[in-house]
């Protein structure tokens, strides 16, 4: 495979299927760089290339990420719902036993770390662990399988150009997905803190820590320093949480894509050992995301 086509292949694999708004007067180019059309009004459309996706700014959705994340989440919820509907105190069947063991595992993690009372945190941890695991699991599917299927479908039935058929099936290699989850967790951290310590307590934690003093003048002097430090510490939690998952999955996906780009049809020779190793990574990352969420929330509730 030639170098330019290899880099194109990799770029294509790293692009998301983006549906968003292009501004008025935007000049759409084809992949040779020629102007195809100039938009008369601002238009919601699928991005034809990475530049368009970037130019859409914030008003854009990664359709593939959202669809896979949502689909996997729905499948997960359905499976759980099936188990919940048939849950009895009697002898569980094989599948129910499996699901119950996951639930007990999560429950133990929550009980070990979080000592407050909350109806939210256990199901939250369950969703995080299982959902992130399922999304990560998509990494083990051969990198070309679904993108090629999607490309073939769109080219055959919808008359798309093959270049615009971006398709990423691993939602957690999209920072939007991981950061959305980690910032949701941050909102929960703030919510838990306010609920446990009151709004004053929350503000007090931001303003009067980590440098504490009884002197009122010193307190005021230290206030900006504390505020900056604590705000950074509060924000660094979701950022590190989201980026850790994203970075691990992105790196793993990148290796699969590189192997595929180098070996083509024979990619499984290189991809198989990496996939075996990756089973550990995807489970571990899902576990870490869950455990850190529990830890952050229990820190939010407990007194320092």
């Amino acid at each position, binding site marked *: 495979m030639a170098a330019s086509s290899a880099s194109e292949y990799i770029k294509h694999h790293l692009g998301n299927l983006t549906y968003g708004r292009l501004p008025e007067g935007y000049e759409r180019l084809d992949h040779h760089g020629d102007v195809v059309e100039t938009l008369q009004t601002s238009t919601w459309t699928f991005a034809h290339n990475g530049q368009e*996706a970037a130019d859409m700014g914030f*008003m854009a959705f990664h359709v593939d990420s959202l669809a896979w994340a949502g689909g996997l989440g729905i499948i997960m919820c359905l499976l759980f719902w099936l188990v919940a*509907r048939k849950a009895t105190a009697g002898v569980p069947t094989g599948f129910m036993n499996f699901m119950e063991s996951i639930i007990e595992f999560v429950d133990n993690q929550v009980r070990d770390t979080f000592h407050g009372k909350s109806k*939210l945190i256990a199901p939250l941890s369950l969703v995080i662990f299982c959902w992130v695991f399922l999304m990560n699991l998509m990494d083990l599917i051969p990198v070309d399988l679904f993108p090629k299927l999607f490309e073939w479908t769109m080219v055959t039935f919808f008359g798309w150009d093959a270049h615009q058929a971006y398709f990423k099936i691993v939602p957690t290699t999209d920072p939007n997905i991981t950061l959305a989850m980690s910032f949701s967790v941050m909102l929960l951290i703030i919510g838990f803190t306010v609920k446990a310590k009151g709004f004053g307590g929350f503000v007090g934690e931001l303003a009067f820590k980590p440098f504490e003093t009884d002197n009122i003048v010193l307190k005021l002097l230290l206030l900006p320093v504390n505020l900056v430090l604590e705000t950074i510490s509060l924000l660094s939690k979701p950022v590190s949480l989201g980026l850790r998952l994203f970075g691990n999955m992105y790196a793993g996906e990148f290796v699969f894509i590189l192997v595929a780009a180098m070996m083509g049809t024979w990619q499984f020779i290189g991809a198989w050992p990496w996939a075996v190793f990756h089973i550990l990574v995807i489970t571990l990352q899902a576990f870490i995301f869950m455990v850190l969420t529990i830890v952050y929330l229990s820190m939010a509730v407990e007194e320092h």
Partner: protein
Amino acid sequence: MNINATLIGQAIWFALFVIFCMKFVWPPISKALEERKQKIAEGLSAADRAERDLVLAQEKASSNLKEAKEKASEIIEQANKRANQIVEEAKDQARTEGERLIEKAQSEIDQEINRAREELRKEVSALALSGAEQVLGREVNRDAHKQLLDDLAAQL
């Protein structure tokens, strides 16, 4: 790798799934697990109790058996004693009966002897009388010598 409204979409998915699990998944399953835990604990304690009961029952059965054995041997002993007693009594009875029979026989013999002696005496006195008559050649007055004759008979 652009940051965009996907964030919001994913946050909505997240919230939906968490709420769904919080409402419809976690409560029934954790309730079922809790119930099962309780059921198993009850079952285990029931098994413990049954085991204890079994031990108690075995102890009771063995003590009953022992008691029964003791009673049985006691009864046998008593029966033996009683049998011996009966045998002794029977022996005693037989002995006294025998003695009585012997005594009776003896007294009968004595009576026979006396009677024989009486008869003999009478015959002897008659013989003596006739002898004496023949010797004296005359009749002896029976009434006059009655005393003498009786004395003679008594000496025989």
